[in-house]
């Protein structure tokens, strides 16, 4: 590539995926996964699930996002300015979730069924939903990257988080946790189908919108990101879990190893989805090249 050639071609964003951007990718996925698992755990009233989701958000999501910042010690500047942007609100959602979630788990353990427990469950649930949602809104608000600039993206991220949440719920159930295995499997199947549908609609909508977002879709389907798309998202994230789900429906019983493999594939698929979405986000050429 010659110097400045990038200004007259479609160029993908690099800051949020290349080099240290990897931390942001993990943070974005962990936010969705942790938020999704907490909501699923609320549905099953699973303390184990709540604890794991709390750890995912507090340690992995919060930690990697902080590591990504150029000046992490200044993070307090972000949390004191919720009016500025969704990034600031997102940091606040994470901190409030960590706070409400810790109190809620303590109440669930020592004072189950109390009014306070219900109140904190609701508050922590709202924050978990917000943590899973806000990363999609951050990307959606970027007008310069048409592939991201879609209302479907936050919805897709939420559903992807819930799918991961149900997957981890299956693993908790298999390990004797406080979750109904059959219900978790059923939820996982439905969410897998919903995710397949959403990914399809999202890509179709992006390719039909305009040339730059079509470029982003092509980048995934046959560009540098294609191996991650086809192997990570399609094969590991969709085909294998779907095959296991169908086999489970037909045979009425699946071994634990197969189920855990399916969940692992789902999580890799979710990671691949976030990676590809970030990697394929492209800008219009700064200057349109004439014929």
């Amino acid at each position, binding site marked *: *590539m010659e110097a*400045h*050639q*990038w*200004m*007259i*071609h*479609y*160029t*993908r*964003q690099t*800051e*949020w995926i290349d*080099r*240290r951007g990897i931390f942001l990718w993990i943070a974005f996925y962990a936010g969705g996964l942790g938020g999704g698992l907490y909501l699923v755990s609320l549905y099953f009233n699973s303390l184990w699930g709540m604890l794991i989701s709390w750890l995912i958000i507090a340690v992995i999501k919060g930690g990697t996002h902080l590591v*990504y*910042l*150029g*000046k*992490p010690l*200044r*993070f307090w*500047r*972000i949390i004191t*300015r919720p009016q*500025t*942007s*969704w*990034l*600031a609100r997102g*940091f606040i959602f994470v901190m409030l979730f960590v706070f409400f979630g810790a109190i809620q788990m303590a109440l669930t353990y020592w004072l189950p069924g109390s009014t306070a427990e219900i109140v904190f469950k609701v508050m922590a649930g709202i924050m978990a939903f917000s943590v899973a949602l806000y990363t999609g809104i*951050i990307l959606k*608000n*970027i*007008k*310069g*990257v048409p592939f991201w600039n879609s209302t479907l993206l936050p919805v897709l991220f939420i559903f992807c988080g819930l799918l991961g949440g149900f997957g981890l719920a299956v693993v908790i159930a298999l390990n004797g946790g406080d979750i109904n295995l059959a219900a978790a499997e059923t939820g996982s199947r439905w969410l897998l189908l919903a995710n397949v549908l959403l990914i399809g609609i999202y890509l179709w909508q992006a390719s039909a919108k305009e*040339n730059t977002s*079509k*470029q*982003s879709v*092509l*980048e995934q389907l*046959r*560009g*540098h990101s294609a191996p991650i798309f086809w192997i990570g998202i399609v094969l590991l994230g969709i085909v294998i879990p779907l095959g296991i789900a169908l086999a489970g429906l037909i045979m009425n019983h699946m071994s634990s190893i197969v189920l855990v493999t399916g969940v692992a594939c789902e999580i890799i698929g979710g990671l691949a989805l976030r990676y590809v979405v970030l990697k*394929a986000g*492209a*800008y*219009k*050429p*700064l*200057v*349109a*090249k*004439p*014929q």
Partner: protein
Amino acid sequence: MRWGMVVDLSKCVRCYACLAACRIEHFLPMGINWPRLVALETGGDSPTVSTYSVRCNQCKDAPCVEVCPTGATTRREDGVVTVDQDKCVGCRYCVVACPYQNRTFLSKDKDQGFFPGRVVTDFEKAGKKLYKHQIGTTEKCNFCAERIDAGLAKGLKPGIDREATPACVNTCPARALTFGDLDDPNSEVSRLIREKKGFQLHPEYNTDPSVYFIDGKIGQSDEPKVDDKADKEPEAIGVGE
């Protein structure tokens, strides 16, 4: 008052003096440039090279200001968008949000010195004292706001008096850059935009840039652009991989 710039594309001779002047003015580390020169071939069988001198557009509705979570990026009353590096947390949301890709995150590898591991020049030593660049924060062109402010304090007029005018404008030997007040209908920039049909880059983003271009074949021409061709099959991106 809203400071703006007009770039006359027909006059630019691609000498890179604007980049050099900016580097000297702001003691820029080797790995970054605030202004950039975009050179591209036009004209098919008998190609000629067109050049765009681009820099932060100091947008009126700047996406970078909207997304900054710490308030480090602000738009001054005179329209100049500035970054307070003491407040910047290095989240790079502004870098990603800028549709013109005119912001740079200053990472360690972009500030290794002019002669890494060998010698620190006097110029670099002076820069460390006079114009600190903080690794881990975001940077961009600020229309030489410090020159504008100092000049105005002395009663000088930016765009007319050299001392109050951005360094790149002063140094351009072809006089391709003009600086002035966009709100003043009698200013040189307003006249040029009016008379020579000045245009902004990507007006569809509704950011209202303060940098205009004139006399270019691209953007003002009636001939179709590559992007306008409906039947063109886009290639996969991967540029610069």
